[in-house]
């Protein structure tokens, strides 16, 4: 089951969902709209090796916006800290974002229950697109789990700002 906007708002009051800062006017019928935070990351190596730590630069989105060319891939982040110990969040583009040809995640929409932090957006432009800090770019929905819950304790917990891949840690035993 998916939570309605009213239920999301109620569960924020009950402290069973975390969205900070929270603004009532970002509640939608079935989701909560997320704003684009001011930082982004660009990978700087020619070939990414999933067994090695990546090299990247952190930058700031200018006040007058950032132009992404078709084919550009960067990591952005939600302005909000989001998560829940009771529901499973899923990240989606806002339909208006998708209609501009911009992906906000390329494959991983599912957030682990118990993961609390800024959401990293996997921004991939299929058309030239201009993005602005603070724009409503994505949305998060919340889904009811079934079964005993073990909370997330993974490598991206308490993220602040865009977080590069740490897949190389998977190869360390």
């Amino acid at each position, binding site marked *: *089951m998916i939570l309605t906007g009213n239920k999301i708002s109620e569960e924020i009051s009950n402290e069973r969902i975390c969205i900070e800062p929270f603004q009532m006017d970002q509640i939608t019928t079935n989701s909560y709209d997320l704003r684009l935070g001011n930082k982004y990351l660009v*990978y700087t190596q*020619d*070939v*990414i*090796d*999933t*067994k090695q730590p*990546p090299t990247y630069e952190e930058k700031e989105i200018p006040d007058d916006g950032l132009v992404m060319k078709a*084919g550009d*891939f960067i*990591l952005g982040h939600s302005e909000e800290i989001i998560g829940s110990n009771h529901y*499973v969040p899923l990240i989606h583009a806002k339909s208006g974002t998708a209609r501009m040809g911009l992906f906000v*995640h*390329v*494959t*991983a*929409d*599912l957030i*682990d*229950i*118990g*993961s609390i932090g800024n959401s*990293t957006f*996997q921004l*991939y432009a299929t058309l030239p697109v201009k993005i602005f800090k603070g724009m409503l770019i994505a949305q998060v929905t919340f*889904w*009811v*789990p*079934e*079964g*005993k*819950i*073990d*909370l*997330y304790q*993974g490598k*991206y917990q308490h993220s602040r700002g865009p*977080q*590069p*891949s*740490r*897949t190389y840690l*998977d*190869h360390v035993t």
Partner: protein
Amino acid sequence: MILTGNEIKKQVSESNIKISDFSNERINPNSYNYRLGKELKIFTGTDSLGNQIFEEVTIPEEGFVLEPGAMYLGVTEEVIGSSKYAMSLIGRSSLGRYGLFLQVSANLGHTTSCHRWTLEIYACKKIKVYPLMNIGQVSFWDNYGEVTCFGKTYANFNLPTETVEK
């Protein structure tokens, strides 16, 4: 409702979910990590009738670099399926953070399908992948209504399989 990791484990033990080589280490709070099989197909062009041609390769131990703009078909190492739950197969966030698409918009795994799933792989940046690396995750969802299998197409395949639509 989406199953928690504990519930996935329980339903595997009760045979309502099938995951080959099941390991508790690959359980997440609400999904299970699957690995990349070594069989890969690379799109190489079209024939005179406009049909897509894919060439088969094996991902070597030392890794294989996926080129941006190309389209690959991979496969899960595991046989995954359920007669009770619907499935969603997506990439891991660690791979998404590198701009690696693990499914191109078709993440739904139908109830009653049980096989090695073909992965539609598209790289936004040059990236080296390895056989048997944790590459994606599958989640399991309750059905609402009676389950009827309306036929299987791709569920009959256990190797990377291109479209059979004509």
